[in-house]
């Protein structure tokens, strides 16, 4: 078994989506989430607010540098993620392909580093 983070990247719309668009998107994502929950591989998921709400912190020489905006200004921004746990990469890729955002943006599949169990 291996854990993967599925990072959903897409272009952020120039204007906020209409309530109907938001509704349609949530319906699609709900269907996907229910699907992978039934499959038994869902471990966690969150949707993110737009990068306009992001703040980035760096600590240099003990001093915090706080800047407005995301870490990197790119065309496609991180919009949300899923954590899944499954047998192999093919299963993870299969799940990633079903994420609604994969149709317009892209989904990066990153293995999560396995950590040794800590005693206590």
């Amino acid at each position, binding site marked *: 078994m291996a854990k993967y983070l599925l990072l959903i990247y897409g272009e952020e719309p120039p204007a906020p989506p209409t309530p109907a668009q938001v509704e349609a998107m949530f319906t699609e994502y709900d269907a996907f989430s229910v699907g992978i929950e039934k499959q038994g591989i869902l471990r966690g998921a969150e949707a993110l607010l737009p990068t306009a709400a992001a703040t980035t912190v760096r600590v240099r020489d003990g001093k915090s540098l706080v800047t407005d905006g995301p870490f990197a200004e790119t065309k496609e921004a991180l919009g949300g993620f899923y954590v899944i746990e499954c047998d192999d990469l093919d299963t993870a890729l299969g799940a990633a392909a079903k994420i609604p955002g994969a149709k317009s943006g892209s989904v990066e599949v990153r*293995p999560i580093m396995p950590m040794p169990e800590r005693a206590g």
Partner: protein
Amino acid sequence: MAEAREPRSVADGSIAVVEQTFRAESGRALATLIRVLGDFDLAEEAVQDAFVTAIERWPRDGVPDRPGAWIVTTARNRALDRLRRRRTEAVKVAEIERAASAGVEGDVRLGGESRVADDRLRLIFTCCHPALPLDARVALTLRTLGGLTTPEIARAFLVPEATLAQRIVRAKKKILAAHIPYRVPPDDLLPERLDGVLATLYLIFNEGYTASVGDELVRRDLCAEAIRLSRLVADLMPESTEARGLLSLLLLQDSRRDARTEPDGGLVLLEAQDRARWDRAEMDEGMALVERALAQSGGRPGPYAIQAAIAACHASAAVAADTDWAEIAALYARLAQVAPSPVVDLNRAVAVAMAFGPAEGLVLVEGLRAEGALAEYHLFHATRADLLRRLGRRQEAAVAYERSLALATNGAERAFLERRLAEVRSAG
């Protein structure tokens, strides 16, 4: 004296058996060990250890009844020793021990052959997984499934040995880290994944067949490996017409190898080749395979089977003039449907010109010219120039030859184009 010589000749004999076993069995042993251990490096080290042990023991104790099975069992034990020495968690060792003995003993009990073949098929799908970069797929496939060493592969692809070794290391790490599965993909993924495997094998072959630089012997090895691995896939997946189509295509192309180069290394065009020098055995096998692939495809052959059918049209013509160009043109039209590409359209135009005259071919070429996709491709302009020349439109032909020359880099091709350009200019 005779007594003193006796043990040494027995020893020499067993060393020869170790060498034979290594050639015949190391790839299979590796595939099995990778399955049971789930670790490429550990499997490689263990198989090497097993052969070192064989060199020590076989001269002394005699060659075992089934050398291949002995190697697999010994390698399994050496791998477990290594794991224990590395102080791998006891639970993990026990888990691998269980899986390894079940796996290896299963092979021994079953006589191994079919199971081992399956291991190699699994391994080729792992090595050609789309999560690995193409150059790493090629290197890893040749290194683990082919009989080529890292320096040999590096020489064949004209990359520094360190670069190639690095590619292989990274690929193996990714297989472990990302849990790339070690199996023949399930039905829903199979067509797409098989395409990836066949494309990798075709790339290996082409590197050996068409590259104009590099060590000739190493390049022959690449072709031989591509054919051997295609044969493995075609044999193990008899229901796949494309696997059989690729094997046929490779055999038919390879059969012309000796006839396609001049002693000085220059390329000989297909129509000028001495057909007596084509390899009859390879041709016959390729022709039989493509017939089966076409019959099996139910009228819907894939790109490799169609390309093999085209190669078979050339192979079945005793002299160039007998070539059935109308059939070849029809096959290119089908190929353009299943695998559209402007280069396929250009080849179709050439076949149409051969079958129905340069004017018919030129209509297609002018259509491609309007699309513009081949504007930077020297063979497009060379083809157009040739058709114009044959139609007596010499001035236009000269312009097209000039355009082709401006793009061509291969010395032999440039010499040919310059000769033609001089001809059309002097006649004009």
